[in-house]
C-alpha cells in the first residue's frame, strides 16, 4: 500500500497566537491489485428480537444477511450472530469461525433461514461475543455489521462498559431498521468502533445496505493504520478529528508513543482518501520564528507510510495572519454543522422550540454555504427553510420520525471543500 499525507493550513500566526490548525488529507492507493496485505474476518450480527416480526423485517433481514454472506470473498473468516436477549452464534458452531467458500456460504444461508424473531435486545452481549470471536484472529482486518431495530434492553451502563473494553478492536458499521431505535445509542457504538451508523427506514432497503457494507469491507486491504502526531515540548494536541467522509472525534483515542508523540487509530484502509483536522496549542514564538507545530505520520506498526509537516510562523503582518485557510474553515463549519443538527434534535425532543429553531437555522446556513446538499435536503424535511443564507427556518409541525433520524445519522457526513460549490 502506498499512502500520502498532505497538510493544508495557514501557517502564519499573529503575535501571541498559539493555536495551530491544519487539515491533513491522507490518501491510500490501496493494495497492489486490490490484494489484502492482511487477512480479514467478517461478523454479521442480526437483531432477532421479537419486534423484528413487524413489517416483514425478519424476512428482509434474512434476505439481507444472505446477500451479505454471498458477497464475502473466498478465504475470509466469517460468523453470524443471532441477537436476542443473549448472543447466540448462528453460524458456524459456537466459538468457531468459518472460512468463506461456496460450500460454507451455502451452509450459512441455510442457517440464516432458520433464524426466528424472539426475545430481547442485548447489544452489549452481542458485541462481546463478536469481540471474543475476533480475538482468534490477531492482525486481521476485522469488520462487523450490526443490525438492530430497537432500544438496547440491557441494564444501564452495561453497553458502555463493554464498549470501553472492546474499543477500537474491530470496526462496527451499524444499521437501524424502522424508527424504534435510538440514533444516539447506536452512534455511541459506531463512534467507539470507528464505523458508521445509518437508518434503513423500510425493511426492503436492508439488502442493498448490507451488500454495500460488505463490498466496502472487502475493499479494505490493510488492517490497523494509525496517525502518529509529534508535537514540540510544551505543546498540546487540542483535538484530532476525522472530518471527511464523516466527522469522528479521535482525540480521546490517543495512545502515547514515546516522548511528545502519540498515535490515533484510523482503522482499516482500502483505496480511499480521508481528511483529518489537527489542532495543536504551541508556545507562542517571536516575530519571524518558524516552528514545527506537529509532524504527522501515517503509520502501520513500525512502518512510516507518509509524513506531513504542520508549521507555525509568527508574523507582525496581519494580512498574513488573518488569512483563513479554506480547508480549515470548511471543515470547522462541517463539524459545527453536525453539532448544530444533533443539538437541534435534542432541543426539539425536549420541547425547547426556540433553541431547536436557532440550531436548525444555523445548520441550514452551514449546509447551504458549504454545498452539503444531502444534509440540506434532509434538513428541509424537518424544518421549512425560508432563507438558507441567513439561516431563517421554521420548525415543521409534523415531522416524519424516519426523516428526523435520517437527518441525525446524516449530520456527521461531510463534503469536501469545493466539491459541490
Amino acid at each position, binding site marked *: 500500500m502506498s*499512502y*500520502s*499525507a*498532505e*497538510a*493544508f*493550513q*495557514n*501557517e*502564519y500566526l499573529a503575535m501571541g497566537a498559539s493555536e495551530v490548525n491544519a487539515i491533513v488529507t491522507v490518501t491510500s492507493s490501496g493494495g497492489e491489485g486490490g490484494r489484502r496485505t492482511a487477512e480479514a474476518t467478517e461478523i454479521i450480527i442480526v437483531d432477532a428480537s421479537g419486534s423484528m416480526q413487524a413489517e416483514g423485517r425478519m424476512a428482509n433481514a434474512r434476505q439481507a444477511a444472505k446477500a451479505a454472506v454471498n458477497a464475502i470473498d473466498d478465504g475470509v473468516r466469517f460468523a453470524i450472530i443471532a441477537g436476542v436477549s443473549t448472543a447466540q452464534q448462528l453460524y458456524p458452531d459456537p466459538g468457531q469461525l468459518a472460512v468463506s467458500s461456496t460450500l460454507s456460504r451455502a451452509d450459512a444461508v441455510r442457517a440464516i433461514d432458520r433464524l426466528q424473531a424472539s426475545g430481547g435486545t442485548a447489544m452489549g452481549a452481542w458485541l462481546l461475543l463478536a469481540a471474543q470471536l475476533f480475538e482468534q484472529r490477531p492482525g486481521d482486518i476485522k469488520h462487523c455489521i450490526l443490525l438492530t431495530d430497537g432500544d438496547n434492553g440491557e441494564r444501564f451502563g452495561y453497553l458502555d462498559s463493554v464498549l470501553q473494553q472492546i474499543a477500537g478492536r474491530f470496526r462496527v458499521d451499524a444499521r437501524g431498521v424502522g424508527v424504534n431505535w435510538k440514533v444516539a445509542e447506536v452512534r455511541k457504538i459506531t463512534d467507539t468502533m470507528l464505523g458508521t451508523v445509518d437508518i434503513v427506514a423500510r425493511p426492503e432497503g436492508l439488502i442493498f445496505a448490507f451488500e454495500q457494507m460488505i463490498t466496502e469491507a472487502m475493499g479494505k486491504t490493510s488492517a490497523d493504520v494509525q496517525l502518529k502526531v509529534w*508535537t*514540540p*515540548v*510544551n*505543546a498540546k494536541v487540542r483535538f484530532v478529528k476525522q472530518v471527511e467522509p464523516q466527522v469522528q472525534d479521535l482525540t480521546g483515542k490517543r495512545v502515547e508513543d514515546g516522548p*511528545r508523540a502519540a498515535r490515533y487509530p484510523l482503522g482499516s484502509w482500502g483505496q480511499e482518501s480521508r481528511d483529518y483536522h489537527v489542532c495543536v496549542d*504551541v508556545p507562542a*514564538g517571536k*516575530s*519571524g*520564528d*518558524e*516552528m*514545527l*507545530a506537529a*509532524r504527522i*505520520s*501515517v503509520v502501520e506498526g513500525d512502518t*512510516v*507510510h*507518509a*509524513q*506531513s*509537516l504542520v*508549521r507555525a*510562523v509568527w*508574523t*507582525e*503582518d*496581519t*494580512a*498574513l495572519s*488573518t*488569512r483563513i*485557510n*479554506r480547508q480549515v474553515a470548511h471543515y470547522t463549519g462541517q463539524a459545527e454543522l453536525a453539532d448544530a443538527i444533533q443539538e437541534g434534535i435534542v432541543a426539539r425532543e425536549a420541547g425547547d422550540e426556540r433553541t431547536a429553531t436557532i440550531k436548525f437555522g444555523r445548520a441550514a446556513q452551514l449546509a447551504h454555504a458549504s454545498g452539503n446538499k444531502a444534509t440540506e435536503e434532509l434538513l428541509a424535511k424537518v424544518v421549512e427553510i425560508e432563507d438558507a443564507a441567513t439561516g431563517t427556518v421554521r420548525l415543521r409541525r409534523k415531522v416524519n420520525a424516519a426523516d428526523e433520524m435520517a437527518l441525525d445519522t446524516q449530520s456527521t457526513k461531510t463534503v469536501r471543500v469545493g466539491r459541490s460549490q
Partner: protein
Amino acid sequence: MILTECDSCAEGRASGASFCEACGRLLNETAVGEAANSATAGEAADKPAGDGPLSGAGPSSGEAASIDGTDAAPARRTGRDCPNCGATGAVDTDGYCEECGLLAGRPRDHTEADGDVVAAAVSDRGRRHHRNEDAMWLAVGADAADIVVCDGVSSSFDPDVASEIAAKTAGELLARAPHPADPTPRDETADAGGTSDATGVDAATAVPSQSDEPEAKDQPEAIGGPEATVDLAAEPPDPALPIAEVVGMAIQGAGQSVATLVDGGDPRRRASNPACTIVAAAVRGPHVGFGWVGDSRAYWVTAAGPAEQLTEDDSWARHVIAMGADPRVAMNDPKAHAITAWLGADAGPILPHIGAFTARTPGHLVLCSDGLWNYLTDPADFGDAVRSALKLATGPRPLLEAARALVTYANSAGGADNITVAIVPVHPLPEADAESDAETQPIKSATSDNEPSEA
C-alpha cells in the same frame, strides 16, 4: 499569474499590477512541502571555481532535507545543536528541533560565494521573512565572472524554487558567454547540442535561435551602459555586446526553466505558478554584458559620485513615471514596487532587457535584489554605501566582507525583505589598448584569452 486576494492592497491589482509585491505581502496561504533546498550557490561546495559556481557557506550545506508532503522518509537527527533551546544534537534533517520544534535555520538562510579578488556575493533571509526566496549564482575565472541574482515573487507558490532554478539555469548558460579577445568565438549551436543538464532543461531548446527573425518580438532589447555610445552610427558596436546577447539568452533559458515548474503534480503551483525576477551579468575583462527581468538591479559604482543604475525596473512606478507621472507621487504609491515583468509560466514570452559596456575607468559592478536597494533608493546613497563597504573591508577577503557589510546594512535598516548582493570589480584595459578598443579594433586582451578557469 492567478491573483490571490491580498487584504492589504486590493488597489495594487485593480490598477493592473497583477500581484501584491506592491505592499510586500506574502500571499501564498499554504506552504506544505519544502522543496529540497540547497542554496544554489552552496551546491558545488567542493568543486573548483571554473567547473561550477562558487561554494556558499550556508550553515549546513549538504544537509538539505528531502521530506515533503508525500515523502515518507522520517526525519533524522543531524547532530546539530538547537540554537533556540540548546538541546544537544536535536536538529532534524528537515531543519526543525526535535525538542522545541523551532526552525534551526535552513541552508539558504544565509549563503556566501567567495570569488576572492574577482567577485563575491552574499544572500540573506533578512529579518522579517521566514525563508530566503532570493537565489544567486557566481562563477569566476581569470578576469571573468558570471553573476545571477533572482528574487522569488512572494505572491506566487514556491517562489524560492523559482529563483533557485532560474539562477542555476542562467548561471550555467552564462558560462558560454564569449571572451571578446577570443579569436574563434564559439559556435552557439554546436555547443548547445551536448549541453543537457540536471535541471532538465536542454540548453539547445532553452536558448531560442534568434537568427531567423532579426525583428522578432522576443529579441532582447539592447540599451547602453556607462559610457555607451549614444550615436551608434558614429562608432563601432561595443565589443561587450555579444556578451550581453548571451546574457539575454541565458535569461530566456532561465525563464523556460521556471515555466516548467508549473507542470509538477502540485495544483497550487498551477493556481499560482512559481515566479521570480532575474538580473544577470557576464564580465569578461573590461567588458560587461548584463540583462534583467523585473526589479532586481545592476549598478555601476566608480570612485566617486552617485551609483549609475544600469537596469530599469519592470515596475509599476517606473511605468507610470515613464508615462509622465510625478516621480515622487508614483514612488510613494503603495503599488510602486509592483513588478510588471517576471519569469514564470504566466509570464508569456520573456523579453529580457540587455545592456553592455566596456569599462574605461575602474569601478564595481553591483547586482542586488530589492532587499538592498529599497534602503538605498538615492543613487548617491547607493554609491556611498558601496564605497564605504569596500573601504572598510580590509581583511583577507575584502570583496566578501564588503558584500557582507551591505547585507548587514540592509538588515540594520529593517531587513524587511530577503537581501542578495554581488560585487565584481571591473578593470579597464591599459590606456593604449582601451583607445584602440574604443575606436576600431576588436580588443587584444591584456589578460587572458581563455575561458574562465581557476579563481
